[in-house]
């Protein structure tokens, strides 16, 4: 096969060498540690083969936090490089790889899994179900995502990172201009992860349509469930486009076809078109669940039901529909003519309308409330002003003619960090602080939480606010350096300082997790926030079957009303029935691994090896087809024992702090 071993590992760069050693040491350490603690069996049976939505959710979140770390490191390196003019810290090639992996990792391997993780943990609980519709498929989704993420991440030590931007525009990303295999990693790893995401979408659509507990009509669903539902629809509508685009990219790069190439009649603009047909909905795929999280958090901590529930639902639907018809705003400057640009300017600006409705509904949810400023709520509060800045600058970009001056400048970079970070990162932080007790049975430290919050929010504004002004002064994105005469230096420096504060905030967050695992009080109530939705009506951490008796719903905010009227909170022995649960399975992780191997060979263009691994994929599918495992039943005694452990007296839901 002519394997070039001398090119296999990336060598010669001290930063990368350091990472290689660090990775190796971490791996050895992890293996040794698990062996020493004799945890292999536990790991295998409790986590790696699990089909429990809560554990899958937690695995998503852990991966996402790790990816945030990696992506954040990339961000810091970029900030260091541009902190001074003519800086010689990273060379241009290295910078290009870093912003590419930063963008891909942050959006696809941090934001997506973080939100999908929270969805996994929360949605079945919120709708009063025992699991998702297809638990095994859910595990498969996770392992495919994980496999794709790992494949993408090894690129910087083995074979070389992709370096054509997270948008990977052709012709640059084609073989003529990027002959290295870095961009194969992009095409293959995102494909694997994308398939997983697509299946998550299908799974959640069916779960939400079919598994809602008795009485929960669509218009009684919690807002996070609504946004998850609509996001899932967007995933199913948009991800196949990306699947095709990536496949065509793979064909162009590996098999010499001419979809996007310069020669043979290929059309570079077609890639941009397909990428954004997926890419724009993608940014709302990450934004919508985040909006759902804020809705839950704001309602809970204002002690009021969501203002304008119906208009909230309609604006979500409106955003989703509009988001499918705005993609051209990412390439107004491609010259498709004023008619096209006008059309897409209008559709894009129209998204401000439903988003504004949501904004004001949130504000008016708080009005007349009693706003309890916890860490979770702080994130939701900071979201409002920060996202408005991101949103209105989005509207400025949406004006086609004006975009001719902003496009591909740091103004754009500032815009999307101002929507992505408040819109997604703040939301996952809010969600994490909010649902942490539900996941683990103890709370994150509130004091550290506030440090985390202030450092991160201030750092964020200091980092990205200057970029608006740099952009308006002509500083372009993706440039690894700039001249001293440009006059950009002070603002770049300010921005770099901001990113250090930002990183300090993130470090406090990590420390908070560590601290809370070690010291936090384990003896907390199952409903510590005095919350409103069903997930709080069961134990913390949630027992594996979620609900001993599936709750019945009569109104919005069902748990709130159950508490108010004191009904449905008790559990009589006579109500306990056997519960049927799905069994663990090794197939999902097997499929993840085999996909990863096949993908790896494909990246290196070792087609025969890839084909052999491909047979393994089919073997897995066949085994699945013949698998008739019916799951198992939980006995009444076991349920009785588990329920007694957390319900102190019959029917009592623990009192809440506050």
């Amino acid at each position, binding site marked *: 096969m002519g394997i070039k071993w001398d090119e296999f590992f990336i060598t010669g760069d001290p930063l990368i060498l350091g990472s290689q050693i660090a990775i190796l040491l971490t791996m050895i350490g992890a293996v040794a540690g698990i062996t020493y603690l004799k945890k292999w069996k536990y790991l295998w049976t409790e986590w790696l083969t699990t089909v429990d939505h809560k554990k899958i959710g937690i695995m998503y979140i852990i991966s996402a936090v790790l990816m945030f770390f990696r992506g954040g490191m990339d961000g810091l390196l970029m900030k260091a490089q541009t902190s001074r003019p003519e800086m010689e810290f990273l060379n241009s090639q290295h910078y290009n790889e870093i912003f590419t992996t930063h963008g891909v990792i942050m959006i696809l391997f941090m934001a997506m899994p973080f939100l999908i993780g929270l969805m996994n943990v929360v949605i079945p609980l919120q709708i009063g179900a025992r699991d998702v*519709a*297809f638990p095994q498929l859910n595990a498969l989704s996770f392992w495919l995502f994980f496999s794709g993420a790992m494949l993408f991440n090894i690129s910087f030590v083995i074979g070389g990172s992709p370096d054509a931007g997270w948008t990977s525009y052709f012709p640059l990303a084609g073989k003529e201009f990027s002959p290295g295999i870095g961009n194969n990693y992009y095409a293959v790893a995102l494909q694997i992860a994308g398939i997983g995401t*697509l299946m998550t*979408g*299908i*799974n959640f*659509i*069916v779960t939400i*349509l*079919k*598994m809602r507990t008795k009485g929960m009509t669509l218009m009684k669903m919690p807002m996070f469930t609504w946004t998850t539902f609509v996001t899932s629809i967007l995933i*199913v*509508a*948009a*991800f*196949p*486009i990306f*699947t*095709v*685009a990536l*496949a*065509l990219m793979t*064909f162009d790069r590996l*098999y*010499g*076809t*001419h*979809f996007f190439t310069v*020669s*043979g*009649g*290929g*059309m570079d603009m*077609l890639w941009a078109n*397909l990428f954004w*047909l997926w890419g724009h909905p993608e940014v709302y795929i990450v934004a919508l669940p985040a909006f759902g999280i804020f809705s839950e958090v704001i309602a809970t901590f204002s002690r009021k039901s969501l203002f304008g529930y119906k208009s909230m639902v309609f604006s979500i639907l409106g955003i989703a529909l509009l988001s499918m018809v705005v993609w051209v705003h990412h390439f107004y400057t491609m010259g498709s003519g004023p008619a096209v640009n006008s059309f897409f300017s209008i559709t894009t600006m129209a998204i401000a309308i439903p988003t504004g409705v949501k904004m004001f509904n949130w504000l008016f949810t708080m009005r007349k409330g009693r706003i309890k400023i916890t860490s979770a709520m702080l994130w939701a509060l900071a979201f409002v002003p920060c996202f408005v800045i991101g949103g209105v600058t989005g509207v400025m970009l949406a004006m086609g003619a004006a975009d001719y001056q902003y496009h591909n400048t740091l103004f754009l970079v500032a815009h999307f960090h101002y929507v992505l970070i408040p819109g997604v990162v703040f939301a996952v932080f809010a969600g994490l602080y909010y649902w942490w007790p539900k996941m683990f049975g103890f709370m994150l430290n509130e004091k550290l939480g506030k440090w985390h919050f202030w450092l991160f929010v201030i750092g964020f504004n200091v980092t990205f606010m200057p970029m608006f002004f740099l952009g308006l002064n002509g500083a372009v994105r993706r440039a690894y350096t700039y001249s001293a005469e440009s006059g950009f230096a002070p603002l770049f420096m300010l921005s770099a300082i901001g990113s250090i504060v930002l990183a300090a905030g993130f470090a406090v967050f990590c420390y908070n997790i560590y601290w809370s695992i070690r010291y936090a009080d384990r003896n907390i109530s199952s409903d510590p926030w005095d919350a409103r939705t069903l997930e709080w009506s069961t134990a913390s951490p949630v027992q594996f079957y979620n609900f001993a008796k599936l709750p019945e719903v009569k109104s919005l905010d069902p748990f709130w009303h159950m508490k108010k009227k004191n009904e449905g909170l008790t559990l009589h022995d006579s109500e306990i029935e056997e519960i*049927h649960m*799905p069994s663990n399975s090794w197939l999902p992780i097997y499929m993840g691994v085999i996909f990863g191997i096949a993908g790896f060979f494909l990246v290196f263009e070792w087609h025969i090896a890839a084909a052999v691994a491909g047979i393994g994929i*089919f073997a897995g599918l*066949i085994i699945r*087809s*013949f698998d*008739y495992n*019916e*799951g198992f039943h939980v006995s009444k005694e076991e349920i009785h024992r588990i329920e007694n452990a957390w319900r102190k007296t019959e029917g009592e839901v623990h009192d809440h702090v506050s």
Partner: protein
Amino acid sequence: MSAKVDTSLPLEYQTEQDRMNILGFWVFLGAEIVLFATLFGVYGVLYERFAGGPTHKDIFVIKDVMIQTVLLLTSSFTMGIAIFEMRRHNLKGLITWLVITLALGAGFLFMEINEFIHYAHEGATMQTSAFLSSLFVLLGTHGAHVTLGIGWATMVIIQLLKRGLTPTTARKTFIIGLYWHFLDVVWIFIFTFVYLKGLVA
């Protein structure tokens, strides 16, 4: 999940899990439609970019295409009959019609492979031009789906033979039926917007 069985419904709809699987498959078909739509869009953009290579009229052979079409249409019909027999709890009829369906599908595949070989002989490969890249990938994706469908249906037939008609096997059969009809629907559009469009005078 195995608990409630509603025997007033056709076998494949009797349990909640089966109903969820069927709904899930419909959603998956929605995704498949988007996938093929993207390929059609790509073809629609690139279909006249011959780069000096062969054009539609140089390579399409209408007679073969008509045979392929009739084969696939008939197989969709026989698949319908198979499901019809399933609903009558006629296992033997079901399997017979399934096998006929697969034979027709295999015939279609055989024709398609021959067609590709013929194209290659005319100097029309996937590397020749954008038009041919998009043509091969569109047809190839459909063909790969048919191949997968044949393999999958074979698995289902084996399970039917082993286990007889149960709600689970019935559901699996029903789903492969949906899949097969769907491939036929895609072909109708390939027939119209690739072959006929390319050959219009």
